[in-house]
């Protein structure tokens, strides 16, 4: 995968080569080399842990810009549920939706209804499914990527139902093309995203040939303009009556901003929710070993507590959770989504993913058993010579990864400062001058 397909990049002007990002990365996808953080694209899952970890604002999200809006005749914003939780408990989703028409979009679309449809479809699909158990949600794209690179055995566990954001964009485009007599490519549909994982799922989709979304703006970028526009009150003129579906915002939809939200909207109660990338990996390890086979569905998020702690949010996670609860009480519970209709759409493959989700194994290890054993022995021997302080000064997140980088030829043992000091101490003083 080319690096530009990732939604994270490092700004050379800001990076001070401190290794905080490399050490935060759950998949060891960052190295600091030649004074600069660099991404190993085959390992990156776009979770944004590096963005959260960077204290110098050097790890950046590659999101849409106002210039991208100008490519279209008509633009619509679809906010993530997390966006509704950014402005405190006094500001209702409806006001936020209207404000979006003052910051450069022609219209807005709330996806609560689609969220409920997908929850219903997941229930219906699971009721007819024969395993393997447990089934795993595809809502968090970083989770899907994690499974592709680290847990290929769990690919069969993913629920092959497209996400609400993609399905909403697909339907919306059809609707707009028909109602406004526009060409499909004249309509720009943009997500308002809480994270780089979703941005990446638009740049380089999985389970889909091409995203139905044209891009995504980070919540962090739209927050200021929307906050200022909130006082406008009146909807902008160009807002389409048909799209003023702000009444559709529901508690069931809003709950998807948090972990537990997805399963709370399902009938099936034999479910679990896991969040935080390390805990998710622990859970996946256990599923691989055959645990949780009596659980039907697992909702998993790389962000602790779910999308409210995405890497592009403004509001603090716990406050956002409170906001979700409090706004949620004032919204209607759900839209009228009929089970029969859902089953019909399911049979028509409306919810189906277009492509198979394939493994993306990362081959650091030789495939031949004897060579793999030799590799493992060398790795252990190397690790024994390293200080095991996991200081990161070599540019790899920890000594074990540095050992692997040495084996792959990407780095050398004396990339470690402790090894260099030890070598100096071993070298007789008179020859030191000749050392390189």
């Amino acid at each position, binding site marked *: 995968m080319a690096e530009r397909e990732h939604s994270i990049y490092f700004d050379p002007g800001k990076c001070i080569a401190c290794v905080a990002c490399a050490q935060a990365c759950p998949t060891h996808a960052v190295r600091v080399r030649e004074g600069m953080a660099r991404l190993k694209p085959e390992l990156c899952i776009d979770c944004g842990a590096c963005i959260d970890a960077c204290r110098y604002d050097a790890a950046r999200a590659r999101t849409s810009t106002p210039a991208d809006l100008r490519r279209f005749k008509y633009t619509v914003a679809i906010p993530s549920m997390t966006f509704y939780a950014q402005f405190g408990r006094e500001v209702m989703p409806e006001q936020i939706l209207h404000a979006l028409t003052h910051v450069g979009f022609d219209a807005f679309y709330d996806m609560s209804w689609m969220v409920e449809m997908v929850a219903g479809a997941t229930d219906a699909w699971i009721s007819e499914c024969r395993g393997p158990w447990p089934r795993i949600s595809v809502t968090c794209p970083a989770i899907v990527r994690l499974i592709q690179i680290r847990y290929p*055995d769990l690919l069969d566990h993913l629920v092959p139902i497209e996400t609400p954001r993609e399905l909403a964009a697909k339907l919306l485009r059809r609707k707009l093309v028909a109602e406004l007599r526009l060409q499909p490519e004249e309509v720009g549909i943009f997500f308002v995203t809480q994270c780089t994982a979703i941005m990446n799922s638009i740049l380089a989709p999985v389970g889909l040939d091409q995203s139905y979304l044209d891009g995504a703006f980070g919540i962090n970028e739209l927050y200021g303009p929307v906050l200022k526009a909130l006082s406008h009150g009146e909807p902008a003129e160009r807002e389409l009556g048909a799209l003023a579906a702000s009444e559709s915002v529901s508690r069931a939809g809003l709950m998807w901003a948090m972990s537990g939200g997805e399963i709370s909207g399902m009938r099936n109660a034999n479910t679990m929710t896991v969040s935080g990338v390390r805990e998710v990996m622990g859970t996946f390890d256990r599923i*691989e*070993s*055959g645990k949780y086979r009596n659980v039907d569905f697992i909702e998993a998020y790389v962000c602790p507590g779910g999308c409210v702690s995405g890497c592009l949010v403004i509001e603090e996670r716990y406050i956002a959770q409170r906001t979700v609860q409090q706004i949620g009480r004032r919204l209607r519970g759900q839209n009228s989504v009929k089970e029969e209709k859902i089953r019909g759409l399911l049979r028509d493959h409306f919810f189906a993913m277009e492509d198979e989700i394939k493994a993306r194994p990362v081959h650091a290890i*030789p*495939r031949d058993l004897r060579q*793999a054993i030799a590799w493992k022995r060398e790795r252990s021997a190397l690790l024994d010579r390293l200080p095991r302080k996991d200081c990161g000064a070599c540019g790899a997140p920890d000594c074990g990864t540095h050992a692997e980088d040495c084996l792959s030829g990407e780095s050398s043992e004396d990339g470690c400062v402790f090894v260099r000091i030890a070598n100096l101490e071993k070298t007789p003083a008179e020859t030191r001058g000749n050392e390189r």
Partner: protein
Amino acid sequence: MNGDAPPLPAPGEEVLYSESFPIRGNDFEHGGSVAARVKVILKQLGIPSDSIRHLSISNFEAEMNVIMYADEATLELQVLSGEVRVILADRGPGIVDLDLAMQEGYSTATPEMRQRGFGAGLGLPNIKRNSDVFSITSTVGVGTTLRYAVQFEA
């Protein structure tokens, strides 16, 4: 240990890699950690993921049996070309009736253990089902030895 000599590879067989892991009875705190460490090793060796899954299921069950019923044990992992072998010899009460212990649903776990999700009586039968080679021997008052292996295309 229970006096069993360490198993020797059959003539012509070569153990390419081996490692031993101690397990202590009642060590619920670390329950499953040996199975997890073995899994990391098997992944590092590039063993097919199907085989790893089968072995991990068995290792977890076998490890928990030691923690629940025995005093202490050593799990020996042996990797051969086309086969991963596990020998788990424990020092403990042993099993009086092996046929009974191998039956699905048979368990001497207490109701409390069962409440915590252990003791469905499926551990040993599951190990057998997930292995290509399986044997169990036991001496009452001395200990139990499990041997199982999963084979794969080399």
